[in-house]
């Protein structure tokens, strides 16, 4: 009997691009996520953190090992997990409203049109996009597009929310605002969240725990850092906490200095 979400010795091989054979992206990744917590994986590009997220989403399969959610092994996508994509992945031919509605209708096929409409409106309001319902994504800024992505993901009310570098393509000023909005939405909904990022400040602001991965190939987990800064956190208040820079320096130091090292087998 494990935790709510258990990544159980997940290992992934890809065909080696430089020739025949297989390359190991990551090896024996094991960690657990408690229900209602926010866990972030931080690591360099190429450590396979997005692949790991896709395995939890069910979009890819682990070469060995796997993922167990609420006692059941994951082998396909499902409405109990929703992804917020780095490049938003909104349907460009649909309006904001339709992009959220397609998710709500998929999650609640038995709902009446009125119920669907109320639910869509609630989540569009939650991300502050009321009034922009009829616009297509191409007419929106990156920040507004990702708000649609968040509304779509939250509207399904998944057991686990998977955030794949969700703010990487948003300009720095807007990014901070949306990060704070995400904190406040998450405080209300208390979803279980798994995020991958390489933005350390973002990870500290949002997370309960940060999982540090070594560089690939054969990436593995180096350590798990508890973020013991009380909530609610804001961008300005979090940096005033006495632990903030200690944690931040620790992680940066890891990324720069120690992420090459392999842990020796015991």
């Amino acid at each position, binding site marked *: 009997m494990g935790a709510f979400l258990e990544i159980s010795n997940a290992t992934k091989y890809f065909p080696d691009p430089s020739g025949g054979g297989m390359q190991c992206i990551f090896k024996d990744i094991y960690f657990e996520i408690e229900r209602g917590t926010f866990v972030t994986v931080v690591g360099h590009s190429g450590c396979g953190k997005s692949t790991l997220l896709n395995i939890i*989403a*069910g*979009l890819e399969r682990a070469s060995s090992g796997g993922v167990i959610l609420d006692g059941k092994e994951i082998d396909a*996508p*499902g*409405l109990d*997990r*929703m*992804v917020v*994509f780095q*490049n938003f*992945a909104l*349907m*460009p*031919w*649909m309006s904001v409203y339709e992009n959220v509605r*397609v*998710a709500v209708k*998929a*999650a609640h096929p038995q709902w009446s049109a009125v119920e669907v409409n109320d639910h869509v409106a609630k989540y569009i309001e939650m991300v502050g996009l009321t009034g922009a319902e009829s616009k*297509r994504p*191409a007419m929106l800024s990156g920040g507004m597009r990702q708000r649609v992505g968040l509304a779509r993901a939250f509207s*399904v009310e998944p057991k686990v929310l998977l955030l794949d570098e969700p703010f990487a393509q948003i300009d720095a000023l807007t990014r901070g605002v949306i990060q704070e909005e995400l904190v406040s939405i998450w405080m209300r909904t208390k979803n279980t969240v798994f995020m991958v990022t390489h933005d350390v400040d973002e990870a500290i602001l949002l997370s309960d725990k940060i999982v540090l991965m070594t560089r690939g190939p054969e990436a593995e987990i180096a350590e798990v850092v508890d973020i013991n800064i009380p909530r609610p956190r804001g961008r300005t208040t979090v940096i005033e906490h006495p632990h903030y820079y200690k944690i931040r320096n620790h992680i940066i130091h890891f990324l720069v200095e120690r992420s090459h090292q392999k842990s020796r087998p015991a």
Partner: protein
Amino acid sequence: MNGSTTMASDTFRIAVLSSTLLLGALGVWQLASTPSVGGRTQGLPGPVAVAKVTWEMLSEPFYDRGPNDKGIGLQVLSSLGRVAIGYGAASVVAIFTGVVLGLNPILLKAANPYIQILKPISPLAWMPLFLYTIRDSTGAMILVIFMSTLWPTLANTAFGVSSIKRDYLNVAALLQLSWWGTFFKVILPAAAPTIVAGLRISIGSAWIAVVAAEMLVGGTGIGYFVWNEWNNLSLTRVIFAILVIGVVGLILDLGFNRLAKAMAYTE
């Protein structure tokens, strides 16, 4: 510089040039058809003669005085009816097959050589086979139209579907959309611009094929009309029919242009 001013003056220049081209063409035509001093009056009919016939034919488009004498409206409708059946059936088959091939890159590569061999075959070349197998000239004509419109739509659909962004299909998978749900909500709208481009090429091919097929085996239709008037040695009516074929083709193309605009999206 003001953009709209430039646009307005461009529009004016285009209109002037366009009118000049038309007048020039009409002038050359008139000169070519004027009886020479030698008195040969049996030359090519000129614009005035064609205009007179046009007026006559268009003032009573739906008359029906037996199998070899019907109004131009009836002939065009008869051709359009054949196109609608052959083109409609081919489009459904082509879009479905194209989606299946587009979603299966291996299958697409396996089938591609055969598509490339079949594509350049003139649809008329199939006519004897169809006449022999189904022994019905209307059916054979519809099958010729079917063959003429299958390949552009099929090739475009397969290409459009194979280049749909993985992300859209991932979202469909995460939302657990059914195959049909994914087909109608994601695949069709995502590939719609490319599919409509194929449909637009196909409607042009269909309109070309129907005229030729009707000249061969038709008992009605605009192509049959052309052939019949050639047998009557009425070149004035042949020229009139050529103009009608052009105008109908233009209207069909404009319709698909509208459809293309409605289906377009920006990423």
